[in-house]
C-alpha cells in the first residue's frame, strides 16, 4: 500500500484522527505520519496533547469571554497561548494564573502539585574555590599519567582564571 500523503513510500502506519468530530483514517509512510501530526504551517512542533489543551481552552474561554492577560517575561498573550496550547516560558504560569487554575483542574482533576519537590541544588563553588579544587585534581591526574584528563582540567583552569581576572578588571 502506498502512503496517501506523499504517494511515494510504502504506507506502514494506519493513522486515525478526528476532523470536525468525524473519525478519519489514512494510511501513511513512517516519514509522513509524524508530519501530519506534529507540524503546523510554521514548522513548530505541536503535540497531540497540545491539541487537547487547545480544545479544553476553547471550551473554557467560550464561557468567560476574552482575557487580555500577557506574560511580562516572554510577551506571550493569553490569546496566543489559547491558539498554541503551550506556554512561552515559566513566567506565563503566573501571568495566566487565574485561568490556569481552572484549566489545570479540567485536565488533571486537580490544580495542586503533590509530588517531588525541587531537586536539591549542589552548592556552587566560587571560581576561586573551583580553581583550587581543579588544581588538586590536575596534580592527581598528572601523577596517574592520565594526560587527557589533565589537559581537560588545565583548559578549564585557564578558562576560569581568564574569567576571574576579567571580572576584577
Amino acid at each position: 500500500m502506498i502512503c496517501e500523503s506523499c504517494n511515494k513510500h510504502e504506507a506502514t502506519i494506519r493513522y486515525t484522527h478526528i476532523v470536525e468530530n468525524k473519525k478519519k483514517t489514512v494510511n501513511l509512510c513512517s516519514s509522513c505520519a509524524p508530519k501530519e501530526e506534529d507540524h503546523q504551517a510554521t514548522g513548530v512542533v505541536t503535540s497531540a496533547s497540545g491539541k487537547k489543551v487547545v480544545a479544553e481552552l476553547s471550551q473554557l474561554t467560550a464561557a468567560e469571554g476574552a482575557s487580555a492577560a500577557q506574560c511580562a517575561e516572554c510577551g506571550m498573550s493569553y490569546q496566543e497561548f489559547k491558539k498554541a496550547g503551550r506556554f512561552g516560558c515559566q513566567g506565563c504560569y503566573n501571568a495566566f494564573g487565574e485561568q490556569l487554575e481552572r484549566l489545570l483542574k479540567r485536565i488533571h482533576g486537580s490544580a495542586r502539585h503533590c509530588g517531588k519537590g525541587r531537586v536539591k541544588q549542589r552548592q556552587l563553588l566560587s571560581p576561586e574555590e573551583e580553581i583550587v579544587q581543579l588544581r588538586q585534581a590536575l596534580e592527581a591526574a598528572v601523577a596517574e599519567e592520565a594526560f587527557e584528563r589533565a589537559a581537560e582540567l588545565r583548559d578549564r583552569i585557564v578558562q576560569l582564571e581568564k574569567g576571574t581576572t576579567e571580572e576584577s578588571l
Partner: protein
Amino acid sequence: MNLQDLARNSADWLSGADDVDGIVLSCRTRLARNLSSSPFAHKATEDDQEKIIAQVLASAKDSSQMNSAIFFKMNALKTEERRLLVERHLISPALADSKGQRGVLFNRNEALSVMINEEDHLRLQAILPGLKALEAWAQINALDNELGARLDYAHTEKWGYLTACPTNTGTGLRISVLIHLPALVLNEDMERVLRGLTHMAFTVRGFYGEGTNAAGNLFQISNQTTLGRSEEEIVQDLERLTRELIECERNAQETLLADARSQVEDKIWRAYGLLSHARVLSSQEFMNLLSAVRLGHTLSVLKGISSSFMNRLMIVTQPSHLQTEAGRVLKPEERDLRRASLVREHMGKQVSQG
C-alpha cells in the same frame, strides 16, 4: 559509536527479563524538565538552545550515570539517521522533524536517555525490560536528582515542575508499559477494555505512538494526568492496572484455548512457518505474524523462541534499520525482500539453537 553500530546494538530493554511470558515487553518512564533561565524550547532563540545543550551536557558529564553517554545533535544527522533513533525509541518523531538546536544523549545500553530541546528543555527517559515500574521510576528519579543538582529547574511549590504544555505540569512524569494483548483483540474485548482505561485516566496508543493503530497487538498504556498525585501513586496505579490487564489477557487466552485449541495452535504454527520461509514480508504482515508467534511463546505452544529474540527482530526489521544495514535508501519492495531474508536467517539460527 556510529549509527551502524547502534543499529546492530541490542538495547537492554529488549532482553525479555521479567516480561511475564512475553506479555509486558517493557516499561518506560519519562520526566519533562525545563531550565528557569530560558523561555521554553519553542520560544527560545538558537543561542538559548545552544546554551541549554551545553548546560545539560555539562551536568551529564558531572553525573555518575551519564558521564560517558553518547550525544547526537539533530542538525548533524540526516533524516534517515534520525528515523533510526526514532525506531530505537531514543527520540520522538517530533524531535526528529524539528529545526533548531536539538539533540539526544543516551547511554550505550540505551536504558537512560535525555532529549534536549524537544517540547521541553529536557525529556529524561528510562526504559527497562518487563514490568519493572518502580525500578523505572527509581532510575529516572536518580538521574533527575543528579542532573538537577547542576541545573536550575523551573519549579514552584504549587504547580510543581513547569512544562511547556499544561498536560505535563506537576510531576512531568509519564510512565508507560508496552503490552501484548492478542487474545483480548481476537475475542473483540479490546474496545471495552480501552474504554475502561480511558475512563480511569490512562491513555492507550499503538506501538508507534500517538494516533497509530496497534501493530502486532502491541499497546502502550500510560498515565494521562501529572498533577494532583505523587509520582509513586502514578507508578503504582499503572502497575496495578497492568497486572489487571495481564489477568484479563490470561483469561481471554484460556477461553480461546478451551473453545478452539486446534485453531489457535494452527494459527501459531502457520505464523511460524511463514516467518521461517516467506520471501516477501511487509512490516504490517511481519508484526501480525510475530504477534502469533509471541502468543505461541506465552502459551508454551512454541518452545525455543525467546522473548529477547522476538524483541530484537522487531527492532531490526524496521525500515531505517534495514536501510542502515544495507548502507543505502531502499525502495519499499526492496525492504520487504530484505526483511523476509533477515527474518528467515534469524529464525533458522534460533531453531538450530533451540
